[in-house]
């Protein structure tokens, strides 16, 4: 056996260019459909995993896909907001625990997600350095967001105005970074997380003043009538919340009307999920309930169909390449007739001759399959990361 392999190995080595070309072509046709399959399936798994782990999403009526993309991947600009009372409604239903989301603002392109601490338990996010956010005006960064923004615990992140001309509405808030989360490989890595109340401050719904009743602010007071104080616009609206002005921060108006972009509803069980969904079916219901898994499955089925065609095309090309490779082997045999005759003439056994000829094929195939296997493995590792980056960044 070793003798046969040795001779075959020597032959293959001597004709290394021919061998390399053969190995390369067979590797490619073996790897391409499989690599593609691995890549697509992996990304499908990624997308589906995120969607599958989010049982129910409540949002304003409109595109279910946009709701899912905004709430799961923090994509899609300016989603239609809902009133906060919808969050309370979910809690009061007794069917599910609500996790509100406010994903509207960005900090240099990185999405700012306002939510509650329950979100971190739900997504199993762990603080890797620093600590969890504690007071108004603090934030925690996903691992990738921290890199992109160049910020870490103790540093700061500033929210971006929605548009250049936004003079009277949303204004930049400088947020202190309390901590950075451990990487998960998902969209949470690329977000800045703040308390929902902090997001409302960015919205302009809450602010801190100099205390209007204190003597120092009297220059800003227009009139004082008993306990009523009217201030002029020169009262300083802080763009940063810290220990010195935290006390003065407060919210105006009725919280029930404050905006959220979505509510993740975590039902207590399957029956609760169905009951809860049922409540949003009526036509005059301002909100919709969505099962992210279903939405992603629809999206993916389209992708899979396209992938199917591509794979079919690659397989066809592959078959023709295999035919060519077979032809090359056969021609090679022809060229080796002389060699075969020599071995026969000196008395070589039939079996060994056949074995040597076959081993060349086997060696080439083994090399190709090993290479294809290696490439597939690489696709498994790197492809997954690449796909995630692609999905999240596109």
């Amino acid at each position, binding site marked *: 056996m070793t003798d046969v392999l040795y001779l075959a190995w020597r032959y293959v080595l001597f004709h290394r260019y021919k061998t390399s070309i053969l190995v390369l072509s067979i590797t490619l046709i073996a790897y391409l459909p499989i690599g593609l399959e691995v890549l697509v399936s992996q990304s499908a798994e990624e997308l589906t995993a995120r969607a599958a782990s989010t049982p129910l999403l409540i949002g304003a009526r409109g595109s279910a896909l946009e709701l899912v993309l905004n709430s799961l991947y923090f994509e899609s600009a300016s989603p239609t907001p809902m009133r906060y009372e919808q969050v309370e409604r979910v809690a009061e239903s007794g069917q599910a625990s609500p996790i509100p989301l406010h994903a509207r603002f960005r900090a240099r392109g990185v999405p700012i997600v306002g939510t509650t601490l329950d979100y971190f338990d739900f997504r199993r996010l762990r603080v890797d350095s620093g600590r969890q956010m504690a007071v108004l005006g603090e934030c925690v960064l996903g691992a990738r967001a921290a890199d992109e923004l160049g910020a870490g615990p103790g540093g700061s992140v500033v929210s971006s105005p929605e548009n250049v001309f936004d003079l009277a509405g949303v204004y930049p808030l400088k947020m202190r970074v309390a901590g950075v989360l451990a990487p998960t490989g998902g969209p949470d890595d690329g977000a800045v997380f703040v308390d929902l109340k902090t997001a409302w401050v960015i919205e302009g719904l809450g602010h801190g003043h100099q205390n209007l009743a204190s003597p120092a602010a009297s220059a800003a007071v227009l009139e004082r009538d008993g306990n009523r104080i009217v201030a002029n616009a020169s009262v300083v609206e802080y763009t940063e919340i810290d220990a010195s002005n935290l006390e003065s921060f407060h919210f105006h108006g009725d919280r029930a009307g404050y905006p959220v972009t979505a509510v993740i509803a975590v039902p207590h069980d399957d029956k609760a999920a169905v009951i809860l969904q049922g409540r949003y079916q009526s036509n005059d219901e301002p909100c919709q309930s969505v099962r992210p898994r279903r939405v992603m499955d629809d999206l993916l089925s389209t992708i899979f169909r396209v992938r199917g065609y591509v794979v079919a095309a690659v397989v066809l090309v592959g078959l023709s390449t295999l035919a060519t490779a077979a032809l090359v082997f056969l021609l090679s045999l022809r060229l080796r007739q002389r060699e075969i005759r020599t071995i026969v*003439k000196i008395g070589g056994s*039939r079996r060994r001759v056949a074995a040597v000829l076959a081993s060349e094929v086997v060696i080439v195939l083994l090399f190709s399959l090993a290479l294809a296997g290696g490439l597939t493995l690489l696709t498994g590792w790197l492809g997954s990361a690449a796909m995630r980056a692609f999905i999240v960044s596109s």
Partner: protein
Amino acid sequence: MIAVTDLEFRYGEEFRLNIPELSVDRGSRVAFIGPSGSGKTTLLHLLAGIVTPTAGRIAINGSEISRLDDVRRRDLRIRRIGLVFQEFELLEYLPVLDNILLPYRVHPALRLDEAVRERAVGLARDVGIGDKLRRTPERLSQGERQRVAVCRALLPEPAILLADEPTGNLDPANAAQVLDILFDYSQTRDATLVTVTHDHDLLGRFERIVDFKDFHES
């Protein structure tokens, strides 16, 4: 030791070889001569068991080989018969040492071990190519190549050497050297040497000359 009786070999419509009787003593050195196409090479192939006769008998040491099946003939050939060809017939992708060791790789009857390897190296040295063991044939001269082929033929220590125009492609100096090696082996080991040759200068060294013009009919 080699006995041919009523041998007939037909190849297509045209070629016919007829040898009523021919015997070669063991240990003798015989030259086959004759015009081209007279069947010298064919007889060599018949003696080696590479082809079988249409009719007649070939016996080596009393055993008839003409009726053996291909497997047994190959077995016999690789163990007992050493072949040298005019075109050397080396495998161009194997280095010299591996070419010499080839018989031990292409048949299960010959086992390649350390002792064989040492003998091969020794043989190579004896014929003057001991320092070229790693080279592939393309980097050898004609003379060197034939010497590799001869080592290959001698390695299994055959009882019979069949050489088909071994010096046909060599210059006189190399031709003489190769013939020396073959003769030396034959004399030392009492091996039978049958050589097909066109080179009349070398004929003097042989004990017996068989002229094929009588055997062939066209």
